[in-house]
């Protein structure tokens, strides 16, 4: 069983978590161009690498950020939004 550290609940089975995509900066919808907005809405960093992602621990509804190597499928660290990394 693969485990993942939740910033609130500690190590839990990965099946208790939900992946919610990479962390992205939203451009200002009032001032950005249509092309910039489309890029934000649709495009992703598709290549493998160490990425920052949104995850949610479903039983406790804890949203947090994980840094993960998407080639080796290894979680490097996790932290709650607005807090320092564990």
């Amino acid at each position, binding site marked *: 069983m693969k485990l993942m550290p939740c910033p609130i609940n500690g190590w839990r089975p990965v099946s208790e978590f939900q992946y919610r995509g990479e962390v992205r900066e939203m451009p200002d919808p009032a001032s950005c161009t249509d092309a910039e907005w*489309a890029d934000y809405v649709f495009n992703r960093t*598709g*290549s493998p690498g160490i990425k920052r992602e949104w995850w949610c621990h479903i039983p406790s509804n804890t949203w947090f950020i994980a840094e993960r190597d998407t*080639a080796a*499928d290894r979680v490097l660290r996790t932290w709650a939004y607005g807090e320092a990394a564990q």
Partner: protein
Amino acid sequence: MPLRLLRFAISKVYPEPRMFRRHGELKPSYDAVIIGAGGHGLAAAYYLARDYRMTNVAVLDRSYIGGGNTGRNTAIIRSNYLTPEGVAFYDESVKLWQDLAVDFDLNLFYSARGHFTLAHTDASVRTMRLRAEVNKHFGVESELVSPDEIQAACPEMDLNCGGHTPVLGALYHKPGAIARHDAVAWGYGRGADQRGVEIHQQTEVLGIDVESGKVKGVMTSRGYIFTRKVLSAAAGYTPRLLDMVGLRSPICVHPLQALVTEPMKAWLDPIIVSGSLHIYVSQSARGELVMGASLDPYEVHSTRSTLDFLEGLAMHMLELFPFLSEVKANRQWAGMADMTPDFAPIMGTTPVEGFYVDAGWGTWGFKATPVCGKTMSYTLANDRNHPLITSFNLARFANYELTGEKGAASVGH
């Protein structure tokens, strides 16, 4: 070993038959370079050579022929999609499949079985009815059938699903078929090879040279090649190739796993899919059950298998077929599926002149192999998108013109 057989083996009169020529060095330049020697890449090479007389073409693969998703899918062919664009495109593919074996002079074990997509809720019955009507409008054999008809075609199924998700009906698609997937890559590869196309395995693309918005050449692990046209047909490796030419895309790579059981007597004729239970199953000519389920729940760039997948699939499979509880799983594997947000592919020209993509094939690419080869070879030869693929262009995202196929593509293979 009998002496006669040994004499045959060392005889020069009967050399070992080979599917493909062996090549030495890469040539310094080609008219076109195709990245990825899977079904899609080799089909494009085949039709380029056969229909457009373009034979100075190299197909490169970092590994071996058909070793990616072509050899990892569950080999199901169907055209009962949801959008008019999708139905027209996949139906053309199903028609091409039917005489491919004659075209290749190679047995593809193409076997039309009939394809049931089960509906367990009122909402999915409504979707099936919509799909049946769209399909019939375009001349695709597809209809909504009752539980009695499903039971008659598959008496072994527990339509009650243990009592908690009873089957209410199904979308029945008579031309639904399975084929031997390796043979498809070999057939296209041999056909292209015989017409002069060079297939270079163990040749990895390290960079694509773009000068003032035009493709100039390709840097490979075995040297530099000059070319004006590059086709990317590399499935899960597509984002890395797009990075090389500075393009962004919505592609996100998730593994898709599958498994086969030990072989058993033939009992399952049709292909059975359940979107609600997230499973599908067919029985191969060898008697193994070929099973699949939904995508892995998060992005991973590797082909590892997981126990979570095996457990989830087995649990749902036993709801439909409780008697399989004693059957052993023989092999489990994964492929890297390049997923798009609208579950439609990304095909055709790109903002980089001379760089073409055939990607975003996620979990639905095998059945489209022939029509992708046809349409991409047209696109490469004429430098304009084939009419069947215009709605699949990369530009659809920037223009907010998506082609929503999720309802028909997600688990239904």
